[in-house]
């Protein structure tokens, strides 16, 4: 029986979120298999074969798996799923897209955003933008689960490689066709994996305003995040959004600047280890979750912060 983890990757490297899903998988069962479906993705299969806890890698190659549609990926996974008790994938836009499709075809419920395992059939997940957590018990023979990456450490790599077994691809479905992808290019660490995130809100005032944050981010090697209001105003691209409907981050340090702290934003960052808030409004709700609160005008505070960081980090 065991666990099948569907790997998220870009045909070159295994996404960090996959390693978190593997950690959850290992806690559920000793037999953990990883499915790597892609195009020219042998290197990914090899990387997966060296992740601690994995017992077998299934590798499926096809041109239409280069950027697989949910329709194609679900068809492949459903075929394998009957042999497993659990089917897991990261709770990223990748996993959220195809996993419910898998669950519906199998006629089982799906557990979204797993944050804790309480038993073989007991799972904890956030609801209401993280304002409550629910413990649910599954009665299905196959449990389809998306795993919140920030809730599980990445499984370590460097184990002796386990076998990689070729898996025949399924034919391409004509229901859906990927036409194009526009990915944001950035030199900075990935938002969900970064140790430090500096995030700006509507208070940044403009795209130029965000330059002040970039300077801080450069100094700290941090990723840049944003509130929905900042994204909507066009200051930064939409994949910067942190929150209930954006990315979930849990960095060592989160610096929120000019963000009021709506519950939908807090949903994405309140598991950060240390939260700093800079806001000119003393009553801003973000201060309720901040470890360090600085009531100040950001246009004054950020240049000062840059200079102070330069001084302290130089030592």
């Amino acid at each position: 029986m065991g666990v099948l983890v569907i790997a998220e990757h870009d045909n070159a490297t295994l996404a960090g979120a996959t390693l978190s899903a593997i950690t959850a998988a290992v806690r559920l069962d000793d037999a953990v298999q990883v499915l790597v479906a892609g195009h020219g993705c042998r290197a990914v299969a090899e990387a997966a074969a060296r992740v601690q806890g994995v017992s077998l890698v299934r590798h499926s190659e096809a041109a239409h798996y280069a950027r697989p549609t949910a329709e194609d990926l679900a068809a492949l996974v459903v075929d394998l799923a009957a042999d497993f008790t659990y089917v897991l994938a990261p709770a990223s836009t990748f996993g959220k897209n195809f996993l419910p499709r898998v669950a519906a075809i199998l006629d089982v419920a799906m557990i979204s955003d797993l944050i804790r395992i309480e038993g073989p059939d007991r799972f904890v997940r956030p609801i209401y933008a993280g304002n409550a957590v629910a413990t649910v018990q599954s009665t299905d023979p196959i449990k389809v689960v998306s795993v919140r990456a920030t809730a599980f450490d990445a499984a370590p790599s460097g184990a002796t490689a386990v076998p990689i077994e070729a898996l025949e691809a399924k034919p391409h479905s004509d229901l859906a066709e990927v036409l194009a992808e526009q990915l944001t290019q950035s030199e900075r660490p990935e938002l969900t994996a970064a140790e430090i995130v500096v995030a700006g809100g509507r208070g940044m005032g403009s795209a130029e305003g965000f330059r002040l944050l970039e300077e801080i981010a450069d100094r700290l090697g941090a990723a840049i995040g944003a509130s929905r209001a900042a994204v909507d105003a066009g200051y930064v691209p939409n994949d910067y959004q942190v929150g209930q409907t954006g990315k979930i981050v849990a960095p060592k340090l989160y610096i929120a600047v000019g963000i009021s702290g709506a519950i939908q934003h807090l949903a994405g960052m309140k598991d950060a280890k240390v939260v700093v808030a800079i806001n000119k409004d003393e009553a801003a709700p973000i201060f309720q979750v901040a470890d360090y609160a600085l009531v100040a005008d950001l246009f004054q505070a950020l240049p000062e912060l840059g200079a102070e960081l330069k001084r302290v980090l130089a030592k």
Partner: protein
Amino acid sequence: MKILVPVKRVIDYNVRVRVKADGSGVETANVKMSMNPFDELAVEEAIRLKEAGRVEAIVAVSIGAPACRETLRTALAMGADRALLVTTESELQPLDVAKVLKAVVGQEAPELVIMGKQAIDDDCNQTGQMLAALLGWGQGTFACGVALAEDSVTVTREIDGGNQTVRLKLPAVVTADLRLNEPRYIKLPNIMKAKQKPLQSMTVQELGVEVAARLKTLQVSEPPPRRSGVKVSSVAELVDKLHNEAKVL
């Protein structure tokens, strides 16, 4: 063409939810309820497609308690043409909702279903994908752009690294993300007009759908609170604390 728009009645997004003392759920008595914000985007998108031609009718459907009528009236006031209430006593999980919606699709034969990507109460983000799977249709999730063509729909999707464009054969299911559009403000005369629009009601049993919750909620609790922080009076003090106290620099 006909568009079906499923809308869910949820606790208003501005309400700070409270967990019941007995851990059985969250407090819903005397709490403001509204249409799920993502479903508002879905209704708005359907109306815009209708205004652009090609779409003859928009049917809104809600599954739940009789109070979902209110949500349907909102959809009608925004511009939906007809509404369908499917009543049930039990709280349905996404798989069951998808099964009910599949039955509704069977009756209504829409060429496009536009719905929210996520209900802000259960935060599941499953129903649209499940419905598409049950129907054997293509899916365009997390849409920030929708363009209708003769026998296909092109959907721009928000994905983690940026955007992806997919073309789906019709019929298809599209789920709305936040940046799809800005829902219109409802004008008073339209609220009056909505009262005249047809709202049909039936039960889950009448639709012939078997539902059975597969997930049992054992407990609902508050997340652990963050310990309260301190106010710093200057940038220098902040950096000092981050460096020497929190040791995160």
